[in-house]
């Protein structure tokens, strides 16, 4: 597989179809894989493909200049679809080297997202590496942690989040690592008006995470990078998953599936009636 991958990447570079290919190289800490940028065929020799290629490289396609080739797992392709849907990059400016993936690992354990993977073979690609892998219906409940919290009383929920989010140091790794967090200036960085005070405390942290998760509604494809990046091990996935669940239930929309679709939050349906219950 890796030989095929290298060959295809080299071909893209030597034929000048792309200016850079974004892939993985061996990391320098534990057995991590690390993002790698190949501008010449020689650079491609650094590339690796293995169980540790967790990073969602889609974050780099909006940062890179020129035409970009990108190694993308099925889940990463979902992000790319989202980025294209939101007009952050043109489809023709990116060559997707899709990779058939049967799951990745974080510190030796199967990544959470892989338990529910429905895209072992990416939805879209220009080049496919590896043989297509059928995706099976997962027996596990994707929204188990979400339901656990939903079943608590409001006071318990408040306490849970307050405790959980009090650990946050507001390093914004969750924001920076997210391929769909592409705003030039984040709401939390504006000072006029100052939506959220800079001081780190439970309340401010909670407000930040609420709005961050809210902004991810109909965007988040569940790659789990925010949670992986968090140095304080905060289960940020739960917040994003909750929003995804609601978007699915209320608007029948799943992010990262249809490149032609309008994201739910940028769209409406006159007939739908989510207001019955709560709008007077």
């Amino acid at each position, binding site marked *: 597989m890796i030989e095929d991958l290298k060959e295809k990447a080299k071909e893209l570079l030597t034929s000048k179809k792309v200016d850079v290919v974004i892939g993985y190289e061996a*990391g*320098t*800490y*534990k057995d*991590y*894989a*690390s*993002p*790698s*940028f190949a501008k010449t065929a020689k650079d491609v020799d650094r590339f690796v493909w293995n169980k540790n290629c967790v*990073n969602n490289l889609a*974050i*780099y396609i909006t*940062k890179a200049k020129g035409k970009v080739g990108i190694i993308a797992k099925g889940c990463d392709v979902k992000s790319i679809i989202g980025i294209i849907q939101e007009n952050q990059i043109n489809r023709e400016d990116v060559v997707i080297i899709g990779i058939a993936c049967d799951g990745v690992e974080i510190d030796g354990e199967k990544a959470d997202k892989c338990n529910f993977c429905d895209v072992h073979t990416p939805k879209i690609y220009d080049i496919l590496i590896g043989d297509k892998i059928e995706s099976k219906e997962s027996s596990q409940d994707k929204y188990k942690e979400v339901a656990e919290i939903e079943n608590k009383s409001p006071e318990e929920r408040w306490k849970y989040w307050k405790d959980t989010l009090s650990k946050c*140091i*507001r*390093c*914004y*790794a969750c*924001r*920076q*690592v997210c391929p769909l967090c592409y705003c030039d*200036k984040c709401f939390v*960085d504006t*000072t006029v008006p*100052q939506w959220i*005070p*800079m*001081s*780190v*405390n439970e309340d401010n942290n909670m407000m930040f995470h609420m709005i961050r998760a809210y902004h991810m509604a109909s965007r988040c494809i569940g790659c789990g*990078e925010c949670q*992986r*990046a968090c*140095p*304080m*091990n905060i289960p940020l996935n739960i917040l994003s998953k909750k929003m995804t669940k609601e978007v699915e239930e209320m608007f029948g929309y799943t992010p990262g599936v249809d490149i032609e679709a309008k994201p739910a939050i940028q769209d409406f349906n006159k007939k739908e009636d989510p207001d019955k219950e709560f709008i007077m």
Partner: protein
Amino acid sequence: MADKLISKEDLNTLIDNLAKDIDVFAPVKKGDMYLYSKISSSKDISLNGKNTKKPLKEVFFGQSEELISFKTAKKEIEIIESEEDGKKRVIIGSRPCDAAALPILDEVFGWDYKDSFYLDKRERTTIISITCNEVEESCFCTSFGNISPSSKEGSDLLLTDIGESFYVEVVTDKGDAIIEGNSNLFKKAENISQKDKRQKEAVEKVKRRVELEGLKEKLDINFEDPIWKEISQKCLGCAACTYLCPTCHCFDIQDEMKKSTGKRVRNWDSCAFGHFTQMPGHQPRTEQFQRFRQRVIHKFKYYVDKFNKTACVGCGRCIENCPVNMDITKVIEKIVSS
């Protein structure tokens, strides 16, 4: 100031005694990580865990610290000075790397204008460090001449686990005062060879190393080298490395107002953020590589120029916590060999 021994049981007694009157901070296991926390009993402390997630600096230079508060009434303003509680404090179980970071911060907060918030806390705190039993894959403290898993830089006492007891090395008068005040718990030092063996073992466990030779000379001249773009390419610009760094000290000052009372707060800030440096009319570091360069040069050149030491202690937190495996040791290697 002779070396001493203290049995593990007596150390617990010492901690419990101290915690009665003064604030004791120690690494405490919280969920899946260790954090410096105030403890009330020796039961809470974990001396054998991983290094703490957040560095020791937060005990002296909190992430959000109130500088003044004020009340406004019509046109009148009353400033209320934020007072320190003045309580004596002890830190037990800090790693030598974290302790070594304090003299580095001392320079910043103590040169010229004296920062009372930091220096006051420093003055009333005694630091009891412990020789690392285990080191992490990310540790590279031995790359710096005066720092190692058993170095005394920045500590007042250094404990080394020699089985039944801890071997206690006295570094400063402050450390000695702790022994004086609890002399019944300390015994005469023996087993020095066991201590030396443990310390030597710990030092040998540190496998990661970075050669600093030639780095400063390179940084003096390579500001415009295209290498900066190359080595910083994968950096995402989050502040995990800076916030968790024991020596990073940049901050922002902001006012927070509630009705007629407010406070002026300083918060950790990071050169990785796009809005960090601003000049009238333009932002000089618009690109990520410029901000990354600022971080590296600040630690390994600007700080060195000013205070004649490096603003890095090799604790490895930046390597461990980087979401994209940005490795400062490799970055330095690349710069030196460029």
